[in-house]
């Protein structure tokens, strides 16, 4: 494949974003936060990115305004189960192979890569891919958070096809899915992923620079880094939650964040239904007044209720963090007795359009609630 390093790049005055071994931990922690409890082990993703940067150098990160309209951009992601990921990792060759096969399918080189989701493992995997292939990474993603389906991305909401969608296993076996809808692409890919050993690399959503500008969530790689930095700096200053909320409130994509509850986890239920990790985490207030919060999750956190009243609901972001350190806690690491805070963050506007809500409305996750934005819920509580 002929890859071009500089095609589609325009000059910009924007502060250059660089991911290096030094700030990968901040980036991975910020991405784990935006992963809202899901997205897989950010630790392995960080290690892989560290190794790739050591071997191939830091990938160039492009602001969306630096991208020319006729550039070709694609997303890379891992599809599978986090438990399998922690045994098999990725070979590296499989990442290269997925991008090269997509390029062959569309008949033109890929100029830049982007993450499908900015949460957990799938936010660091594109860093590995970009470093290995010498391609720039665009400072955008498909949802500004994590969701469990490749159909739940702004590209799909805006009518961009996921296909051709390439799946590659660690033996470099390739399957190209050409399906009519993103949902069908997701369903077919999942069945193939089982045969591929429950962990495979994917590349898809090949699109133009103009489409990236129109149909992605912007500045989310830099948001992840800023969030990670805020947590680290906040720890030094003694109040990581305050620093975290400040950076989100002043961020152009999110703009609203609030601590909706803090307390101790007193009950935790998990079950498997239809291949998802579904459960409920109950948190009791510190002050002993008997106030309770329930966070329901399906891989990602979906809704937080305080004494039965909805305080934040999907697609808004709900994150459980360690009450003292601000460390985001993935749903699989929640346990009895942890002291936690529940942070709610307004979803990017692109997730709240009617087309988007057709895919990410609370009902799409089996919740019998309307979607009320966190800003409105918080206003009602104050009134």
């Amino acid at each position, binding site marked *: 494949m002929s890859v071009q390093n500089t095609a589609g790049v325009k000059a910009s005055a924007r502060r250059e974003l660089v991911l290096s071994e030094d700030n990968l931990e901040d980036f991975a922690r910020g991405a784990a936060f935006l992963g809202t409890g*899901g997205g897989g082990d950010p*630790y*392995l993703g960080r*290690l*892989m990115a*560290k*190794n*790739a940067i050591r071997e191939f150098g830091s990938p160039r990160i492009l602001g969306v305004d630096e991208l020319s309209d006729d550039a070709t951009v694609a997303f890379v992601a891992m*599809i*599978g*189960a*986090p*438990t*399998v990921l*922690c*045994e*098999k*990792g*990725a*070979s*590296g*060759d*499989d*990442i290269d192979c997925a991008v090269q096969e997509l390029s062959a399918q569309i008949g033109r080189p890929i100029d830049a890569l982007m993450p499908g989701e900015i949460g957990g493992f799938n936010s660091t995997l594109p860093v*590995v891919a970009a470093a290995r292939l010498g391609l720039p990474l665009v400072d955008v993603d498909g949802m500004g958070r994590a969701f*469990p389906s490749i159909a739940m991305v702004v590209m799909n909401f805006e009518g961009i096809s996921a296909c051709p969608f390439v799946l590659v296993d*660690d*033996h*470099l076996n390739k399957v190209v899915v050409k399906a009519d809808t993103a949902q069908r692409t997701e369903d077919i890919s*999942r069945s193939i*992923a*089982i045969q591929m*050993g*429950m962990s495979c690399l994917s590349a898809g959503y090949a699109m133009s620079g103009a489409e990236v500008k129109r149909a992605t969530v912007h500045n989310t790689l830099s948001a992840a880094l800023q969030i990670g930095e805020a947590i680290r700096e906040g720890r030094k200053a003694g109040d990581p939650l305050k620093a975290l909320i400040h950076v989100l409130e002043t961020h152009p994509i999110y703009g609203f964040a609030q601590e909706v509850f803090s307390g101790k986890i*007193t009950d935790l239920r*998990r*079950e*498997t239904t*239809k*291949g*998802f*990790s579904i459960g409920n985490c109950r948190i*009791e207030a510190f002050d002993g007044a008997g106030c309770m919060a329930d966070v329901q999750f399906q*891989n990602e956190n979906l809704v937080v209720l305080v004494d039965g009243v909805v305080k934040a609901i999907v697609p808004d972001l709900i994150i459980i963090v360690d009450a003292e350190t601000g460390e985001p806690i993935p749903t*699989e*690491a929640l*346990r*009895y*007795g942890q*002291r936690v805070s529940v942070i709610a963050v307004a979803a990017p506007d692109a997730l709240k359009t009617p087309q988007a809500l057709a895919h990410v409305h609370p009902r799409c996750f089996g919740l019998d609630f309307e979607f009320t934005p966190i800003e409105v819920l918080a206003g009602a509580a104050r009134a």
Partner: protein
Amino acid sequence: MDKQEFLRIGVDVGGTNTDAVLMREGEVLASVKSPTTAQVGDGIVAAIAHVMTQADISPDAIGIVSIGTTHFTNAFVERRGLDRVGVLRIGLPAAKALPPLTDWPDDIAAEVAADIEMVRGGFQFDGRPYADLDEAAVAAAARRFRKQGIKSVAISAVFAPLNGAMEERAGEIVSSEHPGSSLTLSCDIGRIGLLERENAGIMNASLATLATETVGGFRTALKKLGITAPFYISQNDGTLMSADFVEKYPVLTFASGPTNSMRGGARLAGLKDALVADIGGTTTDIGVLRGGFPRESSIMTDIGGVRTNFRMPDVCAIGLGGGSLVSVDGDRVKVGPKSVGYRITEKALVFGGDVLTATDIAVAAGYADIGDHDRVRHLDPAMVEAAVTEMHRLVEDGIDRMKTTGGDAPLILVGGGSVLINRALKGVSEIHTHEEAGVANAIGASIARVGGELDKVVSYDGEGREAAITAAVSEANERAVAAGADAASLETMDIEELPLAYMPGGSVRLRIKVAGDLAVAHGGAA
């Protein structure tokens, strides 16, 4: 053998002290605290001889000896007497982006890992092979290790906990190409999570020579004493391993210390569900007992900077101990986290030193009888009262962190610093202390049980949840009996189900843990 007359000796070999207890059922017949010696065996001989003389017991009356030790943990952390290891991973083409020793501190990686080889082979999540084992590459690596004089080899394979066949075959090849080398197979020591399991395997391989020497030292010590009873060594989850097993898998002793002190405390108090605070010279370790065993931590544990996924007790360490420094800052009195540590007997006021410590406060407040009381009479009663309040508040805070239910729970105090606490504590229903609380570690070692564990991915869609769990529990039971447990006493300690997210098919990772009393009549071989 009559179970009533079954005598047990428990020994705890720590960095500073070697403690021994002689037990008949739940009763402590004799106990001693003596210094750890450079040759650990000498300290053990002295301690055991002391308790046997004290209770007037002949060596042939001893039914079992169990030893808890932090020797191997300390050796790894301090990088003392470690072997250079040849690392062999079976997994290509998978996992190539995360080679062995990824994320080890560079200096310890350089010291431990002499050579690394990755070869083809490995299994899928359901135990099917995804690539045949590259036997020629294994043989070539073994010959290279031999040429370089590397005697200890760590072998790991992708999804080996589900299917150990490739690690075993590779082990045979290494043994035939490199006779006399010592082998560690990852499937024997770790759970799912390739890097963490492989790390544990490499750590274990680095301890091979030390394990042979140390266990040999234990054997010689018991022989000198004329004790022919089987002896066991306790592991991190409070269950026992035979001495032969520890020679092969010393890494499994990591973190057995906190487990033994918590279980020993539980035995002294006669409780199975309680909080335990082990107050030492510098820190207080607070843990939770459930059904007589410590609640385990769900987070990854770093040992000497290396990430592992051992079963470890969930312990909250707070900076309060007998040697904690007490200082006055305006109208606030601060206790810890700095401490004079083991030098308390020269530094504390009551011992003639010039440093105000938590122990001095307990003496000044009139509830501890240690050292020279006159040396703390001059202290301001208001300051003493504030410091006492602060010490109790620190423990209350730690207790609140560890509690999982709202109500009050009983608290067992163990360790030399337990004299610091004498008032009622918030969140605690009653405080249990015991005159033998100082040797709780050795008592814990003496009553350790035999465990069996299973960790595998099953499909509920195939056989149904109930049947899958029943089958898994009986497999864990078989493992426990094979390890020497009395089948009638087996209890299921833990069933953990982790759904494999994103995938249909009802695939679940099941983790089962069972434990039972040692089968006394069979004794077991050591």
